[in-house]
C-alpha cells in the first residue's frame, strides 16, 4: 500500500459556511392501515439538525428502516419536509416551498447502490451523460462532446465507451458511469447511497479510491451512506449515526470510531466481524433484537428495548443530542443518550 496525496482533512475550515444545513428536518408519511382504515404517521425522519461543509465527506450510518434514504430524498428535493428547513444553494426549503428543480439538480446529485438498475438500458453512455447538459441549457455540440469525453476520462473510462449500452459493461464500470452521470452537471454535493455494496469485493477498492480522488480534484462534498463501517471510516471526515428517524450520535470520524458514546454506535461497531480485533467496542456492547417499526417506535429513547445499558428513565424520557466532549473546534462530538458519560467506561 502506498501513502498518497489523499490528505487528511482536519478541521481547518472552521469559518466555512455550510453548503447544506438541515434545521429540525422531519419527513412524515401518512400510512393507511388495512382495508383503508386508521391513518397513522410514519415518522421516517424526525427532527434532524445536520450540516455539510464544502469539501467535506459526511458519513451517514444506520440500519434499514432508520430513515437514511428518506433523508437523502429530502435533501435531493424529491420529498417535501413535513417540518423544519433544508438550506442549500441559497434556497430555504420548508414544508410549503417548492424547490427550484433545475437549481437543485446542479447542486446535489446522487450515486445509487445498484448500477444495474439505475442506468437506462436503452441509452448509450453518451446520451446518459449528454441529456442532462442539454436539459440545463448547454447547446453547443462541441462543448457537450468535450464535457462528456472529459467526464469519461475522469472516471477512468475510454472514449469509445461513450457509444456503448449499459449491458456491455461490468458492475464496476457501470458504477463509474453512474458516478459520471452524477458529476456531469458539476454539482457541489453528491449523495452516495451504498455506492459499493452491490459490487464485487475485488472491485470495491477501485470505486472507493475513485470517489476520494474526484472529491479532492473537484472540491466536492459527499454524504456517504453505508452500512459498511470500514468504508465509512475510510472515507468520512465526520460521521452521523441514525436510528429510527433521529440522529443518535455525530462527531469526527476518529471520535465516533475510537470513542463511541452512544450504545447503538457501540453495538454497530461490535457487530462487525473483525479478524484482527482492533475495535473500541466489545462483545458486551452487542444489541439485542431488531430495529422496531418506525410506525410504532418505542417510547423514550427509541433504542431502549435493544440497549445493553437501559435504565428506567430511558423508557420515558427522550434524550436530546448533547455535546459529550468540550473543545474539538467546530466538529464536536454529540450523543443522544442519558448516560453518554458512562458509555464505554470500563
Amino acid at each position, binding site marked *: *500500500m*502506498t*501513502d*498518497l496525496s*489523499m490528505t*487528511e482533512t482536519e478541521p481547518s475550515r472552521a469559518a466555512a459556511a455550510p453548503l447544506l444545513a438541515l434545521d429540525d428536518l422531519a419527513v412524515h408519511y401518512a400510512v393507511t392501515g388495512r382495508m383503508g382504515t386508521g391513518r397513522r404517521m410514519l415518522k421516517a425522519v424526525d427532527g434532524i439538525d445536520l450540516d455539510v461543509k464544502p469539501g467535506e465527506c459526511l458519513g451517514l450510518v444506520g*440500519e*434499514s428502516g432508520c430513515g437514511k434514504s428518506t433523508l437523502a430524498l429530502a435533501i435531493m428535493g424529491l420529498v417535501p419536509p413535513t417540518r423544519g428547513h433544508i438550506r442549500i444553494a441559497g434556497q430555504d426549503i420548508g414544508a410549503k416551498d417548492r424547490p427550484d428543480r433545475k437549481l437543485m439538480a446542479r447542486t446535489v446529485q446522487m450515486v445509487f447502490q445498484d448500477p444495474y438498475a439505475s442506468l437506462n438500458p436503452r441509452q448509450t453512455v453518451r446520451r446518459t451523460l449528454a441529456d442532462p447538459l442539454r436539459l440545463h441549457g448547454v447547446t453547443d455540440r462541441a462543448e457537450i462532446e468535450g464535457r462528456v469525453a472529459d467526464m469519461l476520462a475522469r472516471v477512468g473510462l475510454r472514449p469509445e465507451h461513450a457509444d456503448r449500452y449499459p449491458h456491455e459493461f*461490468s*458492475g*464496476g*464500470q457501470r458504477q463509474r458511469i453512474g458516478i459520471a452521470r452524477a458529476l456531469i452537471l458539476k454539482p457541489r454535493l453528491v449523495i452516495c447511497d451504498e455506492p459499493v455494496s452491490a459490487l*464485487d*469485493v*475485488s*472491485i*470495491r*477498492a*477501485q470505486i*472507493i*479510491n475513485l470517489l*476520494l480522488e474526484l472529491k479532492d480534484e473537484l472540491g466536492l462534498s459527499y454524504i456517504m451512506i453505508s*452500512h*459498511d*463501517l*470500514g*468504508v465509512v*471510516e*475510510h*472515507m468520512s471526515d465526520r460521521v452521523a449515526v441514525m436510528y429510527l428517524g433521529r440522529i443518535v450520535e455525530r462527531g469526527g*470520524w*476518529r471520535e465516533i*470510531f*475510537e470513542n463511541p458514546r452512544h450504545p447503538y454506535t457501540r*453495538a*454497530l*461497531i*461490535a*457487530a*462487525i*466481524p*473483525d*479478524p*484482527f480485533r*482492533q*475495535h473500541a467496542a466489545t462483545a458486551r456492547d*452487542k*444489541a*439485542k*433484537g*431488531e*430495529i422496531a417499526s418506525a410506525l410504532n417506535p418505542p417510547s423514550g429513547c427509541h433504542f431502549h428495548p*435493544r440497549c445493553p445499558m437501559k435504565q428506567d428513565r430511558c423508557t420515558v424520557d427522550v434524550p436530546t443530542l448533547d455535546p459529550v466532549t468540550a473543545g474539538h473546534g467546530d466538529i464536536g462530538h454529540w450523543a443522544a443518550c442519558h448516560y453518554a458519560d458512562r458509555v464505554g467506561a470500563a
Partner: protein
Amino acid sequence: MTAPALLEVENLRIDLVGEETRHAAVEGVSFRIGKGETFGLVGESGCGKSITALSIMGLLRHPLAIGGGAIRLEGKEIQSLPPGQIRRLRGRKIAMIFQEPMTALNPLSPVGRQIAEMFVLHQGASWSEANAKAVEALRQVRVPSPERRVKDFPHQLSGGMRQRVMIAIALACGPDLLVADEPTTALDVTVQAEIVDLMRELCAANGTAILMISHDLGLVANICRRVAVMYAGRVVEEQAADEVFRHPRHPYTRGLVASLPLLGSRAAHGRRKLAEIAGTVPAIAAYPKGCRFNPRCGLATEICRVEDPAATPLPGDGLVRCHHHD
C-alpha cells in the same frame, strides 16, 4: 487428521452444459471437513462457491451437472445416489440455509408447520408431537413467544426472525453438517451478529459441522477454523482462518485482504489508498488459459499464462495454487 472426514470433496468438477458446449464452472475443487469443524468457502459472485454447496446437497439442476470427482459423506460417495436416497440424507445428515429466507420459506404455510414437517418426514413423528417440537425448536433459536409465532406466516416475520426459522428447520433433525450459503447477507449488521452467534452456538452444542459460504472474508474468518478461497471455479488457497488474513499466500487473496477498508486501520495508519485489483472477474466461458488469475495478477510471468499451477502444500495442512507463491 486420522478419523475419516465428515465431508470430503475430491477433485470436483461442475459443468455448465450448453447445447453443444460444456464449460467447467468448477474444476479440481477438493476439501475436507471434519466432524464438528467449521469451514469457510470464500469468493466473489460467479466463482463457483454456491454451486459447490448445491452439489453437496444434490441440488444441482440443468444446465449445471457434476462433471467429475467425488463427494463423500462419512466415506460414502453421495454424488451419484438416486434422488430418493439423497433426499433422505437432506435434513437428516446435511441441511442448508439460504441467503434470502423469504424466498426459501413457503409463503403459504405457517412457519410452525414448516418446522414440524421435518419431524414428521424424517423422524416419523405424528403431527401433534411434531407441532410441540416445533415450538421447542423456535424457542431454541430464540424467537420470542414461540407458542404464538408458530402460527405466523413468513411475511409476518422480520428478516432476522425468518432466518431464525430457517435455522430451526435446518437443525431440527440434528444434522451432522450445516451448509450456510450467505446466511446473513440480506440482514442488517446488528442482526447479522446475532444470527451468526446463534448459528455458532447451536452447532457447537450439537456437534454440527458448518460449511459457511460467503463473499465476506472477515465474517468467514471470524466463524470458521479453516478457509478456502475460490477464484474462477478453483480453490486458489486453503489455510487456517487467521493465516488467510495474516499471511495470505495467493496474490488474489493478498489483493483482497489489502483492498478491504478494515475498521480501525485509518486510526492506526492514517488514510492510505486502498490496494486495487485490476480488471474484473472472468466469465465461465472465458476463463483464461494457465492460471485463471493471471490477467489481473501483478506477479504474472510467462509460465502463468501457459501452465495451470498445481496445488502446493503449505505448512499446517494448507495449500496454494500459484507459480510464485513464495
